[in-house]
């Protein structure tokens, strides 16, 4: 196992304080960056091959390079701290236990693209985290690490923590910008991309928390070190969130050479005693299921994609043999129906229909043709919407039917759920949750 970089000190008392951070190379990466020309910082990040940790895996250096340079407008970094993809809780840990690392990353990003403000858009539910961050940010201002003339360099840069109010879709980058502007979190039509016209119509880079937290180490240790940590094009340390039916759910830092099986069985302690693995969702609820025999692959963006799924937000949800896959699909479609921003018809209406069909199937009130109807409705959402939410919403229905069609048929044939687990509701009907 590698020496953790991002989460090395998270269990130490006071790891979140400025004093602790400064004793452990805190703000060294920023110091290095401020001694370099902004463009050289972008080149260093490009050379590291750092890919966005928010879900899409897009190269961060390239994203920064696209940010419009010749413009009289201000520029912005928006840090995406909305972390709402079911199964994902890594940014939560980073912000709560290592907030200065994120501030340092934000400032490096601002220096590189020429921004004077970074907005950290944090989901409203993380208010307990926000309060810790605000107290620490005040200390960083007081000691000259944020604000005017940072570390005597002449560089001025502010950090503002902006609280969301409960909306998964606010994590989509243009919806995040809309929400920051005081509107509903509904995405914009692209192009123009945020790099050209983002927050307040000015050039903007939207970066995930974990992405920004990687920057200090890249500057201190160098791009070559970063790439050497993982498979080709999948360098650096990575945080994996393992939850569900494992003994030790948690956030684990490893390289993307680590296999999914190792993450589940070594890091997260394997399944509860006496239980067998049934299915794994490797990248947050929006990605296709992998079966137990597909887990001996490196948990990298490219290898998981090759296996037919996505690394996404690295939220690994583990399910054992007690889990009914019709119920899983219904549970997740409830989420997607609830969170659809409503801007485009296939997602708004289709999600609702998928939930209705799945509810009647799970209740044993479905017909055989409902199974094909699910596939057909799902196919009419995926690829036909304004943002990637549509594909995400169709996925739980499509992937469960693909791998576990027999379970759907059994529900119809027997007129009831054929796998009611003891951890599920016992007194209220399906649909109440």
């Amino acid at each position, binding site marked *: 196992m590698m020496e953790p970089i991002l989460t090395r000190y998270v269990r130490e008392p006071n790891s979140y304080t400025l004093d602790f951070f400064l004793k452990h190379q805190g703000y060294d990466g920023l110091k290095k960056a401020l001694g370099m020309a902004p463009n050289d910082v972008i080149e260093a990040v490009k050379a590291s091959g750092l890919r966005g940790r928010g879900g899409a895996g897009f190269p961060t250096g390239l994203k920064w390079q696209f940010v419009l340079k010749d413009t009289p407008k201000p520029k912005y970094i928006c840090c995406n701290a909305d972390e709402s993809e079911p199964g994902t809780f890594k940014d*939560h840990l980073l912000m709560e236990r290592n907030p200065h690392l994120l501030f340092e990353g934000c400032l490096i990003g601002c220096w590189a693209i020429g921004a004077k403000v970074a907005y950290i858009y944090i989901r409203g539910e993380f208010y307990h985290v926000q309060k810790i961050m605000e107290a620490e940010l005040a200390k960083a201002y007081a000691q000259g690490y944020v604000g005017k003339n940072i570390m005597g360099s002449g560089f001025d840069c502010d950090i503002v923590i902006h609280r969301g*109010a409960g909306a998964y879709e606010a994590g989509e980058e243009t919806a995040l910008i809309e929400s920051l502007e005081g509107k509903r979190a509904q995405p914009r039509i692209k192009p123009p991309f945020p790099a050209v016209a983002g927050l307040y119509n000015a050039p903007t880079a939207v970066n995930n928390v974990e992405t920004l937290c990687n920057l200090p180490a890249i500057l201190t240790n160098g791009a070559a070190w970063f790439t050497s940590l993982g498979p080709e094009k999948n360098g650096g340390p990575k945080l994996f969130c393992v939850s569900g039916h494992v003994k030790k759910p948690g956030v684990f830092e490893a390289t993307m050479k680590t296999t999914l099986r190792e993450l589940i069985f070594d890091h997260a302690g394997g399944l509860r005693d006496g239980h067998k693995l049934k299915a794994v969702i490797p990248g947050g609820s929006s990605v296709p299921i992998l079966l137990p025999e597909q887990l001996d692959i490196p948990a990298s963006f490219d290898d998981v994609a090759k296996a037919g799924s996505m690394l996404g937000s690295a939220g690994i949800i583990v399910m054992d043999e007690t889990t009914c896959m019709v119920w899983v699909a219904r549970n*997740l479609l409830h989420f997607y129906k609830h969170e659809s921003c409503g801007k485009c018809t296939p997602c708004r209406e289709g999600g609702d229909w998928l939930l209705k069909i799945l509810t009647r199937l799970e209740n044993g009130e479905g017909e055989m043709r409902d199974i094909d109807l699910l596939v057909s409705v799902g196919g009419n959402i995926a690829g036909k919407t304004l943002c990637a939410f549509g594909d995400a919403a169709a996925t739980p229905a499509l992937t469960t039917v693909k791998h576990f069609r027999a379970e759907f048929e059994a529900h119809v044939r027997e007129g009831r759920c054929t796998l009611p687990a003891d*951890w599920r*509701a016992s007194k209220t009907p399906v649909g109440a949750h």
Partner: protein
Amino acid sequence: MSFHPLMVYDRDHFHRSERTRLDEGKAFTFTPERRAALDDLLTKYPPDQKRSAVLAALYLVQEQEGYLTANGMRHVAGILEMTPAEVEDVATYYVMFFRERVGKYVLQVCRTLSCALAGAERVTEALSEKLGIKVGETDPSGMFTLLEFECLGACDRAPIVMVNNEHWHERVRPQDAGRLVDDIRARGVAAFNGCHLKLEKS
């Protein structure tokens, strides 16, 4: 028109948007402290982008009134130079704003997959039984409201209950849910065990 050929919209099957009238509430102005807090927040955004503070302003209304009233929203609209409709548009989108009176403790149980795999449905059932109310309701004493929320971003500590948009109680077991209610009655917010800070080695 229907979105899928097999899914007709007729007299019995149609989609209707759920527009609700907001409660007028009492006449509203921010307390001087809250008004000062909002003015301070406004300095964090460009002067012509006051609207960016609307979520923060609505949280302040909710803090003062317990929920969002139409009067509160009109007051916010005046300060932020928005129309009341624009404020209502935002207020009705985000789930952390309450549009009707809620109990002193709003129990927000996470219902999404990882929590459900760890027994969240049974936690909700146990709370519902103990309080004698269904999800979405407030108990007659006005002390508790029971809600289900979607993934709260702490699935390793499942099942999670958030309280009043702010306090957290993690690893709730169905068999302990009833005791939690008694504990809240006795000790208030001290009953909650918090979140990740517990990670610290002691």
